[in-house]
């Protein structure tokens, strides 16, 4: 086996859709890249009649040189579909998902994989030959701002999302300019001509907009062995909603630790973000004990790493900008604890297991319990006020959400029942066979 090239990534998704047509939906994303490439995403859902299923959107490949990301997501889709259709459990090293867990993930969620956000960049990086430094390429291959200068080609797609994109205005002059973004096309952090100027970031926006049930967004990067959660713009605070990315009164004051400005996140949502990052981290570490850690993206040792225009922050902004939109938690996985973008394929298989163990752990946590399935049925069919039944009002996530104690208890009971049923089925089958 080898790393997937850009053609193979798309073919793999088409192939999975053809082999599992009733369990998958293949989405052709609407924006073609500067070099004319098309990207696809694959949706896995076993029971579309269940209308309350949350969507988990997993993306990767935004930075060209971070080679392994797309391979992790294609593998995740293949594993999940194979295990589901053969009624099998799934194991990555020491992280085990029972057959019941696999079945419930597929039947009660939408797992959406968009493996290769930036195919032009990946193709360029992977074509590295003698005398070429292009394996280290990070950006896309948009030539619009290059002025014909080769090193000025490309935009860092992960500085191009609409979150404090206009960093010279939004951030303090004292914020670290080496991490925020850059107006210089020669920089690896060049943020483009405008927010969402790039087809790659617009494809991600289209995908997230399409799934109004999206609850979790994970962007797979490498390397460092971290699981990061918002915000990336400044320290988090939970007390002053006016101190927010939305408030222009704070323009020019963001991005510096220890000063007056801190980015607002409701306490309940901060707990959810930390719990979600912890679930991913623990899932990864259960595979082979790599010691990944979870952190807020802003912090870096005793200094800071302020960022603008990143995907996980943008994903998390949506509920603040439109109260009708569902809560979407954004995360980043930086896989690989070694200092390299280019592990051998043999090493990469271990990283695939790590990442997929973490992502499926999140999906396992996010899947609704039988209690939520029943409530969903009531929600749809009983003549009660739908507003009254909105999940987050009646059932606060601290208690009822995927990380709440009630949900955990129901899940344990449900898993136990499923295992007993599977055991009895197996015993009956072996007696008859």
């Amino acid at each position: 086996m080898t790393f997937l090239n850009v053609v193979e990534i798309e073919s793999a998704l088409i192939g999975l859709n053809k082999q599992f047509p009733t369990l998958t939906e293949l989405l052709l994303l609407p924006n073609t890249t500067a070099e004319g490439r098309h990207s696809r995403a694959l949706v896995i859902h076993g029971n579309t009649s269940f209308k309350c299923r949350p969507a988990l959107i997993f993306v990767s490949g935004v930075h060209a040189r971070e080679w392994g990301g797309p391979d992790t997501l294609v593998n995740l889709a293949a594993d999940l579909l194979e295990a589901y259709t053969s009624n099998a459990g799934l194991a990555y090293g020491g992280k085990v998902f029972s057959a019941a867990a696999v079945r419930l993930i597929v039947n009660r969620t939408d797992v959406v994989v968009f493996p290769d956000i930036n195919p032009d960049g990946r193709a360029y990086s992977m074509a590295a030959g003698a005398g070429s430094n292009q394996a280290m390429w990070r950006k896309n291959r948009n030539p619009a701002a290059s002025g014909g200068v080769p090193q000025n080609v490309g935009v860092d797609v992960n500085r191009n999302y609409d979150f404090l994109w206009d960093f010279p205005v939004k951030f303090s002059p004292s914020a670290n300019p080496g991490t925020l973004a850059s107006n210089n096309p020669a920089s690896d952090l060049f943020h483009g001509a405008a927010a969402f100027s790039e087809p790659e970031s617009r494809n991600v926006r289209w995908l997230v907009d399409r799934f109004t049930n999206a609850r979790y967004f994970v962007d797979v990067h490498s390397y460092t062995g971290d699981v990061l959660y918002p915000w990336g713009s400044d320290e988090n605070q939970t007390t002053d909603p006016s101190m927010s990315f939305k408030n222009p009164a704070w323009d020019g004051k963001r991005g510096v630790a220890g000063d007056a400005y801190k980015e607002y996140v409701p306490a309940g949502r901060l707990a959810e973000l930390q719990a979600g990052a912890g679930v991913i981290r623990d899932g990864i570490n259960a595979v082979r004990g790599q010691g990944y850690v979870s952190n807020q993206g802003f912090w870096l040792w005793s200094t800071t790493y302020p960022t603008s225009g990143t995907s996980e922050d943008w994903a998390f902004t949506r509920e603040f900008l439109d109260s009708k939109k569902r809560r979407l938690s954004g995360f980043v996985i930086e896989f690989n604890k070694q200092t390299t973008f280019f592990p051998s394929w043999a090493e990469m298989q271990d990283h695939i297991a790590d990442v997929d163990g973490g992502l499926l752990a999140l999906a396992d946590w996010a899947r609704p319990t039988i209690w939520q399935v029943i409530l969903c049925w009531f929600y749809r069919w009983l003549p009660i006020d739908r507003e009254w039944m909105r999940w987050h009002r009646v059932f606060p996530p601290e208690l009822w959400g995927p990380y709440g104690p009630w949900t955990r208890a129901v899940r344990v009971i449900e898993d136990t029942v499923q295992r007993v049923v599977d055991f009895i089925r197996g015993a009956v089958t072996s007696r008859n066979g």
Partner: protein
Amino acid sequence: MTNDQTPAGDDGRDEYPDDRFVVTVVVTSEQAADLIGRGELDLGDHPTFAPIDEDRARLTVFASRSQIGALQSEGFDVEVGDNMSALGRARASEVGQGDRFDGGRVAPRGIGRKIGGRGPDVGQVPS
């Protein structure tokens, strides 16, 4: 990022002028903020620090030979590791050629271990 017009091919050389090396730089917190803030060094995707003591840590960056020389001339304690550009060139041999999935006529198989179940039934939706 330069040299991107150089045609691919094996000319037997291991290192080129713009190659980037893994470099660890011993820094204090203030020096780290200064180095990162210059925006000149390739920090990877999310920089890594290995703490030495309360005040100092090793910051990992990617730097060319000329950037390494500049850091050393500023008095930084620098340790030069692997040539990441050369590693990328070498790893290009581990990238798939052609299309293993034949335009979608073949589906990939996952590397995860399947436990129990009905192996031969892969592809059939459970009843």
